């Protein structure tokens, strides 16, 4: 929204916009805007273009390649990338493991891993959830037993996004017995996915797509040198990382683009011989969504201002996650409804034949997006966080 940006910020936005127009490959943009599946090389190609420009890790310290941008500029950059239809940044390396290493890593770990993460030499994934440990992450059980210079890992991770594409995984493991505080005895390890004893099994989701996996660890040896921070202090690392995971969840740039897609798509559908976009009931739903987008855009900017000026109440990221994902889900739902009976026929996830028609992707996408209110701390967990941290309600 132009209304809210200063002249300097508008100039920065135009700079980013112009660069994106010239440097975002059209085939990648079309895959994103037409809801076709991205493969490992798509993500890495875009990451390397950004890395060559120096824009792939804006929030990192400048000594490791950060841009030195203000929070506002970072926000604008993220929104513009989403709005332009750039492939999303796979968060596990650049937004999670990188910041963790910068904060907690040894000098050797930083020297080795950070440049590789920056350039996209390695594709990372995240080993957190286990079959019995979802929202209650601290109950995790995967064992890491110290034997000399190694830990030996036995156990299972689940819902591991992109494990089938990944070169490395960072894991929370149990190195000590559960004491009174379950958060004690957890450690944070970096594990080479090529290690003997790792098996990746796909978990196909209801949209037919393969994003997530089960990862089994059977006597997997991990050098002690790959432990980040102290043994038993993994929960501190995990909490820090979860804070990072939740900074860009409003995803307004992407939602703004999809809102425009929705309006254009609805204008091409017919109802009673007229464009669906003229139907009063459909109009109301679209208008309500647009108002939600407006409200969240301003709320997002207000929160950034509060954070910049040290007036954070600790609940901002959770509120953005809740409202942002509700909007994302509503978008996919209205898009599917707009397709009418045509929504029933689904295109396969990587079908490129019907290049300009998104219809076949809409029902799949509606199904897929149910994940957004579940992942990255379910929206119920976010409410728990707000209740505890901001409102001080007793547990």
């Amino acid at each position: 929204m132009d209304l809210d940006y200063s002249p300097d910020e508008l100039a920065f936005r135009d700079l980013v916009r112009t660069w994106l127009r010239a440097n975002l490959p059209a085939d990648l943009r079309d895959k994103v805007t037409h809801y076709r599946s991205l493969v490992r090389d798509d993500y890495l190609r875009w990451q390397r273009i950004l890395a060559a420009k120096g824009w792939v890790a804006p929030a990192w310290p400048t000594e490791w390649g950060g841009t030195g941008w203000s929070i506002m500029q970072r926000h604008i950059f993220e929104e513009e990338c989403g709005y332009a239809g750039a492939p999303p940044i796979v968060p596990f390396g650049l937004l999670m493991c990188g910041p963790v290493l910068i904060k907690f890593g040894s000098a050797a770990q930083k020297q080795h891993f950070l440049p590789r993460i920056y350039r996209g030499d390695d594709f990372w994934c995240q080993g957190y959830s286990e079959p019995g440990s979802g929202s209650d992450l601290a109950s995790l059980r995967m064992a890491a037993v110290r034997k000399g210079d190694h830990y030996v890992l036995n156990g299972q991770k689940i819902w591991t996004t992109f494990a089938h594409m990944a070169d490395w995984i960072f894991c929370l493991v149990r190195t000590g017995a559960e004491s009174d505080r379950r958060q004690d005895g957890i450690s944070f390890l970096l594990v080479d996915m090529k290690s003997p004893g790792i098996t990746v099994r796909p978990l196909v989701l209801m949209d037919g797509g393969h994003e997530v996996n089960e990862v089994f660890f059977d006597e997997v040896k991990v050098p002690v040198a790959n432990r980040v921070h102290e043994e038993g202090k993994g929960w501190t690392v995990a909490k820090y990382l979860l804070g990072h995971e939740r900074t860009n969840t409003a995803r307004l740039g992407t939602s703004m683009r999809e809102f425009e897609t929705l309006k254009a798509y609805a204008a091409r559908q017919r109802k009673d011989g007229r464009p669906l976009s003229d139907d009063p009931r459909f109009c109301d739903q679209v208008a309500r969504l647009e108002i939600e987008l407006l409200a969240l855009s301003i709320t997002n900017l207000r929160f950034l201002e509060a954070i910049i000026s040290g007036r954070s109440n600790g609940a901002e990221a959770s509120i953005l996650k809740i409202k942002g994902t509700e909007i994302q889900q509503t978008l996919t739902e209205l898009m599917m409804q707009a397709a009418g009976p045509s929504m029933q026929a689904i295109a396969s996830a990587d079908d490129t034949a019907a290049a300009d028609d998104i219809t076949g992707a809409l029902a799949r996408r509606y199904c897929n997006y149910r994940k957004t209110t579940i992942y990255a701390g379910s929206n119920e967990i976010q409410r728990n966080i707000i209740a505890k941290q901001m409102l001080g309600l007793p547990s």
Partner: protein
Amino acid sequence: MKFACDEEQSLLADSVRRLLAHDYGFEARREIVTSTTGYSASVWKAFADLGLLGLGIVLEHGGFGGGALACAPVLEAFGEALVVEPYLATVTAAQLVARGGTTAQRETILPRVVEGTLRLAFAQTEPGARYDLAEVSTLARASGGGYVIDGQKCAIVHGSCADLLVVSARTSGQVRDPTGISLFLIDPRANGVTMRSSRTLDGLRIADLSLAGVQVAAEALVGSAGSALPLIESVVDYATALLCAEAVGAIASANAATLDYLKTRRQFGAPIGSFQALQHRMVDMVISHEQVKSMAWLACTSVDSERDEVKRKRMVSAAKVKVAEAARHVSQESVQLHGGMGMSDELKISHTFRRLTMIAQLCGDANHHLERFTHSKR
């Protein structure tokens, strides 16, 4: 910083809160609500002394020349304390004079508003017109160098305590024509004027007005004849923005009371705020409050600086949709979470509920603004 108050605004808001804490407690307010006039002359004077009545009036008429954003922190404080004084009624009507009036009208009326000796009200709505500002059938016929006015107005907030009314009437055209609407200054004591006042659910006063052959001079016409609708729309948008700011305060008050109740009320051997079912509902009320703060800012900044009339209308309507829905959500949930106590007239929360219920519908309800948001086009 765009969203936070500047220092001057913060100081003013603090002064207002101090005044209200001292003179506008729950019992003091109850006495004002049940008094004959429905407002407090001494509080009104205190508002004038603090400069609140001149916030939106230009310097040359004794005011401070601020826009809706400058006024918003005051309305927020009013929302917290459930102020029933005829403030919004007076400053809204004053804007009609300030933006549309002749030099003579501005010079005679505005300084008296600022000093607190003249209260105004805007008589716009007609029976059956709901929120349609062009649905004006009250007739003003040119006669003997002036006008003779006949018609019915209703739902005039604080009409009965106004010293002067600004009344919309048709000088040409048919009902609902956008052109042909004019504004007139009418003395409520003039011949042919009958006012019937009643109390509102939320402790304010509201009046119906009957005009039967009311004669006014040519000088009573505000601005030029027949072209008042854009002025009315912009001033009603201004009032809507201020109402959104008041909602921010009322919702803050409801949330604070509810959170406090959740922490102190014990059942099953624990504070009820330890129950997750209630915690999540409280969190959703907090989220509603954040969204309303954003939308009140959007409405205020749009009426202050949006030059594109269509965009201004859309933004104000977007804000009012969200505010109406949040007012309903928070008011209903705050009573529910208070349990039986929420129903009691003795607790402030039931009064906040009533004010929020009215705010949801004042200046256009959610459906009205959803339609205007969708259909306002260049």
